[in-house]
């Protein structure tokens, strides 16, 4: 099973959607997001920092998330990302869009 390490293996925008989703349950720092994605995908998604951070910056740029410095559970300095209202809306929209896309792909693959 191919472990995804670069965004090119995901559909464009999917990584952002996954990050938005993982922030939906509460603010997290970068490493916690990676871990969350890894565990939630049953070890199938391992996101590298070189993919994670550009995606996080895109969220900041679009105003979907806000970042602030805090202290991690192991007492280290870490930057926490929190979903904004716009981000929540984006998450819902993207999710619908993604489901439609998956269904479309399925239709194509199942057609003969």
């Amino acid at each position, binding site marked *: 099973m191919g472990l995804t390490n670069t965004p090119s293996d995901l559909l464009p925008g999917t990584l952002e959607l996954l990050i938005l989703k993982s922030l939906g349950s509460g603010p997290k720092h970068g490493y916690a997001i990676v871990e969350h994605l890894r565990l939630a995908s049953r070890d199938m998604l391992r996101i590298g*920092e070189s993919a994670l951070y550009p995606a996080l910056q895109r969220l900041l740029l679009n105003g979907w998330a806000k970042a602030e410095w805090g202290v991690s559970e192991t007492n280290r300095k870490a930057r926490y990302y929190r979903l904004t209202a716009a981000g929540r809306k984006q998450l819902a929209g993207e999710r619908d869009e993604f489901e439609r896309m998956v269904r479309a792909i399925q239709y194509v693959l199942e057609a003969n």
Partner: protein
Amino acid sequence: MATWVRRLLYLLRQSRHDRELREEIEAHRSLRAAHLEREGLTPQQADQASRRAIGNVLLAREDIREIWVGSWPSFWQDVRYGLRTLRKNVVFTAVAVVTLALGIGINTGIFTVLNGVLFRDLPAPGAHDLVAISQTVEGAQFTATAGFDTFATAEYHAYRDRTRTLAGVLAHSDPRESTLGGEAPQDVFGSIVSCNYFSVLQQPPPLGRALVEQDCQPGAPPVVVLSHRVWTTTFAADPAIVGREIELARRPFTVVGVAADGMYGGGPMGTAYFAPLSAEPMLWPGPAPVRDDKYRWLHLIGRRGDGQSLEQVRAELGVIAAQIDREQKGRTTTLAIERATPMTVPNGVRGVATGAAAVLMAAFGLVLLIACANVANLLLARGTVRSQEIAIRLSLGAGRARVVRQLLTESLLIAIAGGLLGSVLALWSFQTLVALALPSALPPEIPAVTWALDFSPDVRVLWFALILTLGTSLLFGLVPALQVSKPDLNGVIKQETASAGSSRRGGRLRGTLVGVQVALSMVLMISTGLLMRGLYATYTIDPGFSYRDVAFLSFGTDYGPAAVVNQRLMDQAAALPGVQAVAYASQTPLGESLMGAGVRLPGESKEAQRYAELDGVTPGYFSLLGIRIVRGRTFTDAESASAEQSSARQPNAQRQPGVRPAIVSETAARTFWGTGDPIGRTLLRDDMRGGDVALQVVGVAADAQLTALGTVVPYIYEPRGPGGVLLVKSRAGFAATASGIRALVRASDPSVAFRVLPLEGNVAWWRGISGMVTTLGAGLGVLALVLASVGIYGVVSFAVSRRFREIGIRMALGATALDALRTILRQALRPVVIGAVIGIAAAAAVSRILSGVLFGVSPADPLGLGGAAVLVLFVALAAGTMAARPATRADPTAALRYE
């Protein structure tokens, strides 16, 4: 928040952003390493593994930068394209840039001046922590109030001792004159300061020591810290000055230090020395405010303690003020605590100063508006020419917003060039101008002072210029950009109807802009016209007294020679060759000081009292100045002599019942008795100590403009003995008279500071002020008119070029050149006439304000108003006609072949 705002913020804080990102990724890595360690790896292995896992960090950072600055390349593209377009139209660019440079430049220039006076920090280390404290008090009696918003000594101590939010509170008096003795005695301005002055300002004297608390104890030996300027000028920068004894106000003072160069001296003027509070009674004879808890005379400046906000300081001092109020029944204190600025502007004056600044800025702003209208017009005209290019871009799918952005980028480029050019010119020229103008802002009687104001540009000025530049680019760029990019593709691409269709719409806008320009320059020119009439009036007006051939002698404020000496001086001066008359007065005509008093009729309440100017004069005063006694008589020698006995040396004398003689001016007589005969009537004058002086009118004098040129105020003269200002009228010429008087004074007392000046100088000073304002107004007015006529010229010649063909056809059909000219002008000048009418109406309102501020300016002056209006119309017509002339030379055949 829009994405572009976040992009801009990113650009502004790029380095911080990068640093945070590095830290974040490093934090991420160490979290991963810690995780791996928990899973059983050695620290070293964990470290390596986490570094491997993290991937190419540099590449990620590159990616991130691209995310943030992603769309900027297209901005640079706009800039490059804009520069290319501007370079291709050199004339257009030059006219636009120069126009804006003028507009932005003069506004930046005037702002540097206002900045230096009103907004700058005090020249002291850590000035942002300094706060000026001022108060207004109701329901409490004070002996006297020197200056607005001041504090009494006891109040100062209360704030200084009770505050916790301020690390220190200093107090200083307004700088006042006193005589600095020596071989050439001179009057200097000096400040009396609390002994923590140097420590609160954190500026210890580089030479000697600062004032310390012991210096302020009663009975302490008199010491003084000299200002750097006096040390270098009067004392030739003597390195052994510390410990030397100098004479101030005829008392010995020991110099203990020399203050830092440019140290704040308690006001916009430089000070000569800093003396401790306890020295006040020695320096300034008369009531001793330092010992009088009801005498308000001190300005307070505090330094905020660590981490104390302005709000905390306000809250705490408010509590202290409330405590003081509780100690004195019926008293209400309102404190004002602001960032300290060089000009301690008290509440009452702040409004006036800000108002004057607003009028000034408005006048300068009008010129900027005209400049903007001009450039907008140029852009519109050019936009019509470019309409094809733009239509093509629109039809190829460029969004309207994209086209507007492109056009605005061009405007921004023009504005930046204009702003840079203008600001550089302004910063350089206004400093010079102000340095030239400042000395003449003070009456000649005041001893030479240096101004301690700093007009060099600071961050605030740069921000002002930047915002002005960006604002103007929107102001002149937005409307043309929207207008030009209106999607009217059909019309424009079908060339034939294009010009007619879009130029009619653009034409109306251009017409409006011309109208606005004309209206604005009309306002400025009419104001100038009225100012010039006012200036003319100051030169031709009869001030009501004759100032020619009169010299006056005045002593420093701390020196009042004994009456005997004054009497002798007067007698000796009268005996000088050529002298026709001599007299003493308490105040110099048109001089520096005024003394108003509340006056009322017997039986009226104190609330009903009216203000009159008060002067004490010897009997010969009226004939010397040629002020006619219309009714009654002047004072007698006996009245003058008895006034001398009841002078300030015997304070009780004022409380004695008994009536003093008085002479009132015609205006005063009219104010109190209308047409009735005032001779023998009684007036009550407030003696400013809670009592009244009864005055009996013995004469009525003709009105004279003694307080301000062009202003007649009610005057009340009382008799006085020899003393005050000696007026000498002589046929011998000023130079001879002055040297005669000087010799007399030196012979009687070589250690006294005094000045002998021509009375004509005071009149000239008043004219100089009018002249300065008029020159400024005229400069602005002419600039506005030039800009407006350039605008009219541009619009008319544009109209001619657009209609060249039509004119040719008309002429081919038999119209004369004159007809063609008339057609063009009628259309082009309609906005001019409409603008002129609006301008005249607006000017009527402005002139009413001006007439209140400046002497001799009458709001309904037909010559000033009409002359200016005719001039504006004439210039507009001339510009229009000149621009329209090519139309009259239109050759029908050539015109038909045009295009």
